[in-house]
């Protein structure tokens, strides 16, 4: 038993505690915003947060909150509450739990701090537009919509002009809401820090290329929180530098994320927040490590479009071309590139009822992967927050069958 415990302790990522402390301090700070004369903006996870940081507005992420609600298994209760308010149970479970949570201040942290403004960027879905409309009516506060035309096959010059103009509008919106001009030097610093943070986050994810991988996608889902919520702050850089050093130490010491890494897998779509531990144990029992995922890399996947010295200008394209705002064939190409980079033996797709832009098209991506890389694929039907859409016994059986196929392939 003590051997098991010491092995567990050895594999535990030590930075985790620091991360929890930072997130706790962040939420306390956000909840105290009123007392400290600070403004709070609710913003979508793919939204341009850097101008908020530059204006000293505290960004709060209902989607991060949704993830916490899911992870603490409070999703069903809040989703049901939203359904009693008239919202269909087919709607996004992040949206449902956030909409109802705002009215009862429930959930794991007693509700989010009340917003002074809302910033909605539709580069992740059309759902956020409707969700933020609901919240703008409920709180009766200004809503800024950052409309990033979908890049099915290209980022057109028409879209470029439109999105660039919206950056000016966004800055004007914030200046109006805060009653002061934006400090351009500060904005440049924040832009550089954001870029630096994205680079570091990518480097952290890159360590999973090593065999055995020092981290799993489940770890990435957890450590992701800072690049989402505090992108553009020095704190994020400091944290990811520490995490990166820890990952490198693990590689040197030969410490893998799971005891016996025999098989390497790639994950697609959002996590199933309420079954993270169960899934990670389930795969570990099969000696399978989920080394990478398409989700956490979305926050550093558009770096090639950013000019760190002209952040504000170049962010138009970067925010328009993130993973979910591109065509299915383009997504498939990125999946194939990850399969090669991380040298995975199988591909697990979470077909997520809550997220149509992420999930519709997965069948085609699966076919492309099977054809071009000939690796086994498994599709799990579930939902990121609403446990009612999850059948543990069914998923368990399917994972077992999938792992048998992978083991067979590896043997031959």
């Amino acid at each position, binding site marked *: 038993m003590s051997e098991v415990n010491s092995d567990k302790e050895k594999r535990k990522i030590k930075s985790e505690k620091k991360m929890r402390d930072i997130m706790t301090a962040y939420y306390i700070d956000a909840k105290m915003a009123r007392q400290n004369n600070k403004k709070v903006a609710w913003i979508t996870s793919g939204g341009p947060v850097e101008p908020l940081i530059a204006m000293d507005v505290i960004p709060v992420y209902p989607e991060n909150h949704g993830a916490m609600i899911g992870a603490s298994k409070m999703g069903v209760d809040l989703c049901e509450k939203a359904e009693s308010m008239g919202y269909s149970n087919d709607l996004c479970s992040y949206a449902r739990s956030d909409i109802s949570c705002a009215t009862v201040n429930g959930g794991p942290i007693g509700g989010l701090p009340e917003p002074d403004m809302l910033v909605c960027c539709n580069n992740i879905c059309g759902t956020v537009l409707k969700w933020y409309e609901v919240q703008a009516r409920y709180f009766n506060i200004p809503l800024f919509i950052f409309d990033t035309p*979908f890049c099915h096959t290209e980022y057109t010059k028409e879209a470029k002009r439109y999105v660039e103009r919206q950056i000016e509008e966004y800055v004007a919106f914030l200046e109006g809401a805060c009653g002061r001009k934006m400090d351009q030097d500060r904005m440049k610093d924040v832009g550089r820090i954001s870029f630096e943070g994205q680079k570091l986050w990518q480097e952290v994810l890159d360590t999973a290329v090593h065999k055995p991988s020092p981290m799993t996608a489940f770890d990435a889902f957890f450590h992701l929180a800072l690049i989402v919520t505090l992108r553009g702050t020095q704190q994020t850089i400091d944290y990811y530098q520490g995490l990166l050093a820890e990952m490198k130490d693990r590689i040197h010491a030969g410490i893998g994320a799971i005891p016996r890494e025999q098989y390497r897998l790639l994950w697609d779509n959002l996590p199933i927040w309420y079954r993270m531990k169960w899934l990670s144990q389930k795969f570990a029992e099969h000696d399978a490590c989920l080394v990478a995922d398409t989700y956490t890399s979305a926050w550093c996947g558009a770096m090639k479009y950013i000019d760190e010295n002209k952040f504000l200008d170049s962010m138009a394209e970067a925010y328009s071309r993130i993973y979910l705002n591109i065509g299915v064939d383009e997504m498939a190409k990125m999946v194939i590139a990850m399969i090669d980079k991380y040298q995975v033996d199988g591909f697990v797709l979470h077909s997520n009822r809550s997220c149509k832009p992420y*999930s519709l098209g997965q069948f085609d991506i699966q076919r492309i992967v099977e054809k071009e890389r000939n690796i086994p694929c498994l599709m799990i039907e579930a939902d990121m927050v609403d446990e009612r859409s999850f059948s543990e016994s069914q998923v368990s059986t399917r994972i077992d069958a999938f792992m048998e196929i992978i083991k067979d392939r590896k043997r031959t």
Partner: protein
Amino acid sequence: MFGKRRNIALLIPNMLACVHKTGKPQISGWEGNAMDTMTEFREVVDQPYAYLQKLKGQTGKKMVGYVCSYTPEEILLAAGAHPVRFFGTKEQIHLADSHLQSYSCSIVRGVLEEGLSGRIGFLDGMIFPHTCDSIQRLSDIWRMNIPFGFHLDLVLPVKLNTSSARDYMTDVLRKFQNDVGRALGVNITDDDLQKAIGTMNAIRQSIRDLYEIRSQYPHLLSGADLYTLVRASMMMDRERLAGMLAETAVKMKAKAAGEKPDASLKRIILVGGMCNHPDIYPLIEKAGGAVVWDDFCTGARYFTELVAGGDDPVAGIAERLIRRVVCPAKHAGLDRRAKHILRLVREHNARGVIFLLFKFCDPHAFDYPDIRKSMDEAGIPVLLLEMEDPLPGEGQLKTRFEAFLEMV
């Protein structure tokens, strides 16, 4: 292409006559040539592919499909093409199941089914305006899997109430004009566009006239007939259609001249994405109701607003798309839709609103609680009917409509 269920009332219009309480024999207001006109509309709606293939053979026009009422049909017409709206499928869905999960709506799955089955292989192209998350992915899946015809995305703005969005709307329509021209190998001139605008304005005005007449004298024009007429309008040769609709509107006006409104009818407004089940109209009518207006994208949202005259036809088309009644997948303000529906209720003196909510239609499902609240505050009764495919049995629907109409 349409709801699976055949509408028996459509095929036997006289059946509807017995439900009207005016004492006079009615054949839904159609007489003489008007009857032939209605027959033609019905044939198009019942056998759309036969009609379209015949039209293509006779005229040589390129057939271009689309899936959203924000498609600028004027630009397609100006290119000499024939625009065709798709609404789903009449057939069982099985091919689309290997591309789309069960939680995408029946319209999106149905349209893909028609493409994959090759039943609409006569199409020369397909247009995908940016609408909702599901249609956005349908576009990708179509482009990657459908071998026939060209494929074009029209990535419209999602917000409509800023000047940059307005400029982008014009920019992107100009790009679309070029894309369509290139795909069809034609040069689309301003003159072509002005002519197409004239045709589409005439069509929209006539449908609007018919809606107005129906609102005043619902007993003259059954819901199922108007449904057929509007559906046919999105598939028929637009030149011929413009003439037929104008003539029909004139005849209906003449017919209405000697009429008195039937005060016994309970006036209802339908709200939702679209209605693929025409059999609900006779059920509402039999329960003593009359649909006097709607907020459907295959209804009033399609024909409201005309393109204003001006030197720049594309800017005119863009302006119409900005001003027209908004779809919930777009943003034109926080209370635009609730206010619009309230206004419809007042203008048309309606006594209740029936929501037809397509299962898995996120934009409408998000709007429903807020619109419901506005209706509740104004004391307007609301019935929510979730449209699953297939619909609940006729008996169950009849009971729900009767109970609702009893209450209003």
